[in-house]
């Protein structure tokens, strides 16, 4: 049984993660993860067939921040915002003291380009499978697996889910 304090801390982690991305504060994004971490975006199509190829995988904080640098400096894509909805959060304490979490996400993408400025569409839906640990009393994602139902990616995937 999780204490309310721990629940609130974990819920805040999961909610703050969303605002970090949606408010375009990507530079903070790696800090939501533990020192040793794994972030994987996996099409449901592959997972269901036992195939290992991900859309994105980062097995270190360094790789996370390289994604952010690429996002800011290298990659070319249509200007846009994300807006997440995350709900149906279930928390399960694990034997090793970590917490397993699952929740559903939707990302709406709003274009900020000249052609479709201010129009919004359902961009991606799926589910998060997290392992959460406490480092310095702060909850962090040891692992965040993003299972993408919407495996037919519209245009491209550059901003993390």
């Amino acid at each position: 049984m999780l204490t309310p304090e721990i629940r609130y801390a974990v819920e805040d982690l999961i909610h703050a993660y969303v605002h970090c991305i949606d408010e375009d504060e990507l530079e903070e994004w790696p800090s939501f993860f533990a020192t040793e971490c794994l972030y994987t975006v996996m099409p449901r199509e592959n997972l269901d067939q036992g195939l290992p190829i991900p859309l994105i995988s980062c097995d270190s904080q360094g790789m996370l921040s390289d994604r952010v640098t690429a996002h800011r400096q290298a990659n070319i894509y249509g200007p846009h915002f994300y807006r997440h909805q995350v709900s149906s959060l279930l928390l399960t304490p694990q034997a090793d003291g970590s917490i397993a979490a699952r929740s559903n996400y939707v990302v709406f993408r709003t274009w900020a380009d000249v052609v479709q400025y201010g129009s919004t569409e359902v961009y991606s839906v799926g589910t998060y499978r997290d392992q959460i640990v406490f480092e310095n009393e702060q909850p962090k994602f040891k692992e965040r697996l993003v299972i993408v139902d919407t495996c037919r990616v519209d245009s491209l995937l550059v901003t993390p889910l």
Partner: protein
Amino acid sequence: MQTGAAEQPIEIQWPEEAETRVPYQVFLDSAIYEREQERLFRGPVWNYVGLEAEIPNVGDFKATFIGDTPIVVTRGKDGGLNAFVNRCAHRGALVCRKPRGNTHTHVCVYHQWSYNLEGDLIGVPFRKGIEGKGGYGADFDTAQHSLHKLNIASYQGLIFVSFARELHSLEDYLGPQMRPWLDRLFARPIQVLGYSRQYIRANWKLYAENVRDPYHASLLHLFHTTFGLYRSSMGGGVIMDEEGRHDMLRSYKRTEEQETAAYKDAGLRTYNKGYGLADPSLLQSRQELEPHLTNQIQTIFPGLVLQQIQNTLATRQILPKAPDQFELIFTYFGYQDDDEDLRAIRLKQANFVGPAGLISMEDGHAAEIVQQAIGRDKDASSYIGFGGDDVSDQENLLTETAIRGFWHYYRDVMGFAA
């Protein structure tokens, strides 16, 4: 938008310098899109549809498309390959609704007509009616009601299907210039590692141009230059088949001195702004194929792209969906005898390619911003005179020659040649 069974006439004016100009109309016009389906995708071409490794066992099937016609490919009882249009001979329902699976009989859900792996009609419920009433007459001949069967052939485990009844053999269609490069990639037994799908709001030919275009590589994809990983040029070249419709772009790292010289020539600003990779493990790769190449980007007209980008191996299937939409399906593979490390490298390098690929996500966007810009200017043209105006193999990458090759053949097939 069809207005009758006959083919619509198309008024198109190719500009005078036809080899180096493409009128934007070809990316916009729905009548051209319709004609492509008939004359091109159903025409004298072999369409890539998948890998033998996807359907290894008897009864395995894959449902996919040729152009935008739904088809099914099956592994027959004899181990052979079959293909048919995915449309029931009775009243036209999709017979096969899942993208893959295994079954010995394809049963249409509507009235349960059933077909064998070759597409022959083998079962018709209530065929003779009940108690002498209803059903089909004595003259009903199942042989007249098979699925529409298609030619199928494979080369090195790559499966191709054609609507054309008379056609060059697949080997000849690929041609002696292209085959060695397929051989390079498929010398050992492969294993499918996964899929990704990308839906792009642009005409499919903008992507066909993109993959034949080495010009954009270091200019649109800024990952390497941003992280100071190499400068803005590589060694490489372009090889085409005789028709100019297929091509193979290869690139490899040059020596430091060559790069520096090239760089000076180009007079380009550097993009290296002092960023370094925080985790360089992403760059780990292994030389595994002869000859050594950083990239092999090969196209087989009309809709196949084959890629070796460092250690990521994949086919890409271009599926047109509408004049301004296409889907791109990546099928990633490795070799069955990959060691664990190599497999791990492939999975990590998956970050480079596909819809979220650090050095490839931009291609879909490039196609989309062209589509967005040209909509009202179908009479204007793009200019493809980079590296000359002819269609010929090149030992450098600063050329649009393979794009010119594509259009040359395209105009021929479509009846747009002068």
